[in-house]
């Protein structure tokens, strides 16, 4: 691990300024991903700003009937919160499907959003990787790419975003609250939070240097059935090959509204409005669900080892929508 200096931030403004002022500085909260990467010298911050003492660990009701989740709320606390279990089950399920009990106790809401890809080549400093070392090339495109993206990727990077929690938040239309180093606040809709890789895969979010996440807000609980399904190589403690967070409302035997976001297939939680809208007012059917699945991966492609994800998306979505329609 490279040497670094360390400070504990006492206020959000101090933390933001400390990171903005020092090149090579980073925030550390749970640290479960950052320290992992620092040990491998994939991440080499020269200064760490410990934000664990900031007053951002509360889950509060919002005036519009939603929920405001502080940036430092641990994944396990969020998953176990009675309001989340009752009204945002898809989020609770997604959190519980991720990592292990020990990691969820440490990992924070903001840290989960900002975790880096688990692409093997990003982790292997002996291999080219445009995300780790811009301009060096992508080893995954012609390499082992079983876990890689089938949509949203570019010629420079086919890494996936590994979060389960973010997939559920994308389906829930969450918003990310942030503070800027100058003290001003900025709210970023989830749809605008992550960047696609293009030719700058090292830039992953809309956050500017020093900009710090203070909370994630959830709108009032959605109507309908909420399901999170994660397809992976082992039953627990593994990243998703394909996961889907779905919220489906039915009335009179017809689908009134359907929202679904995917994990494991793209550089960010993947949601396609054009796949959801045709289902509104339709009678649930396998054919309609399959068409929605096609729309989700429209324009996508496999890279060899991950070709199986294209049909797997369709099958997983069909299974989840069928279950949701039946439950309603």
């Amino acid at each position, binding site marked *: *691990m*490279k*040497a*670094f*200096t*360390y400070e*504990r931030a006492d206020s959000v403004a101090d933390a933001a300024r400390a990171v903005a002022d020092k090149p090579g500085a980073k925030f*550390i909260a749970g*640290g*479960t991903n950052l*320290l*992992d990467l620092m*040990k491998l*010298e994939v991440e080499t911050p020269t200064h*760490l700003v*410990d934000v*664990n003492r900031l007053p951002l660990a509360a889950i509060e009701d919002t005036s519009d009937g939603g929920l405001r989740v502080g940036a430092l709320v641990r994944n*396990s606390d969020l*998953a*176990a919160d009675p309001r989340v*279990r*009752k009204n945002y*089950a898809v989020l*609770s*399920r997604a959190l*519980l*499907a991720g*990592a*292990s*009990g*020990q*990691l969820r*106790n*440490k990992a924070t809401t903001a840290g989960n959003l900002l975790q880096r890809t688990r692409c093997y080549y990003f982790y292997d400093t002996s291999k080219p990787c445009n995300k780790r070392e811009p301009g060096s090339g992508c080893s995954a495109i012609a390499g082992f790419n079983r876990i890689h993206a089938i949509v949203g990727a570019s010629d420079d990077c086919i890494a996936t975003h590994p979060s389960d929690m973010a997939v559920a938040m994308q389906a829930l239309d969450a918003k990310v609250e942030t503070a800027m180093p100058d003290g001003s606040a900025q709210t970023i809709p989830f749809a605008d939070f992550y960047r696609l890789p293009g030719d700058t895969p090292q830039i992953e979010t809309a956050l500017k240097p020093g900009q710090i996440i203070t909370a994630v807000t959830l709108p009032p609980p959605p109507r309908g059935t909420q399901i999170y399904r994660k397809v992976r190589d082992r*039953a*627990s*403690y593994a990243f998703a090959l394909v996961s889907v967070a779905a919220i489906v409302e039915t009335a009179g035997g017809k689908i009134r509204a359907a929202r679904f976001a995917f994990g494991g297939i793209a550089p960010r939680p993947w949601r396609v409005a054009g796949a959801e809208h045709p289902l509104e007012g339709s009678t649930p059917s396998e054919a309609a669900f399959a068409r929605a699945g096609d729309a989700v991966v429209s324009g996508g492609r496999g890279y060899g080892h991950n070709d199986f994800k294209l049909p797997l998306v369709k099958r997983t979505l069909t299974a989840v929508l069928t279950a949701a329609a039946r439950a309603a």
Partner: protein
Amino acid sequence: MNESEWRPRRPTRRQILETAAALAVLGYTRPSFAAEGNPATPPLPPTDLAIADVPVRLTVNGTAQNLTLDTRTTLLDMLREHLGLTGSKKGCDHGQCGACTVLVDGRRINSCLSLAAMHDGDSVTTIEGLADGDRLHPLQAAFVEHDGFQCGYCTPGQICSAAGMLNEHKAGWPSVVTEDLAAHAELSDPEIRERMSGNICRCSAYPNIVAAIRDAAGETL
């Protein structure tokens, strides 16, 4: 000396394993080293020169500790290399195996993926701190009773993780295999397995580990 004379004096493989396993359950420690406190020299050669030390004050197994550490020191390295508490094990050092699991303010975490400096003011319990004097913690006794190990290397992490997990279950936390999120799930074997998936046992003693935890869960912890 013929074979029949010396053989009984030689410890069997089983006896060696039992001794090793007993040490694993208790969390073997070297008291003389622990009493020395914080060694002046860092135990592992750093890959880069230290540029900063940080004061860390925390409580470990009920004892206050006042240390000055290289900022890079993980909680696990602090416990093992600076306090001589070698019960917590370094398996993968990347949060994948669970051998380093300790309790911080009653919650289980991977001590390898946390900086000691981040735990200033915290209270840490390791495998060495679970027993009440000579009285084993119910989980330790259950692991011995059910033979919940073979080599014993993962055992301190398994036991600390189980202790934290039982607290979580008692608090009503669900797991991904919990059918009804609103209910307080019964601690079935699938629930135990799911909740303990962050602890790997390469000897694959899982059936006995699950049995030990199931048994201990019935006792007041």
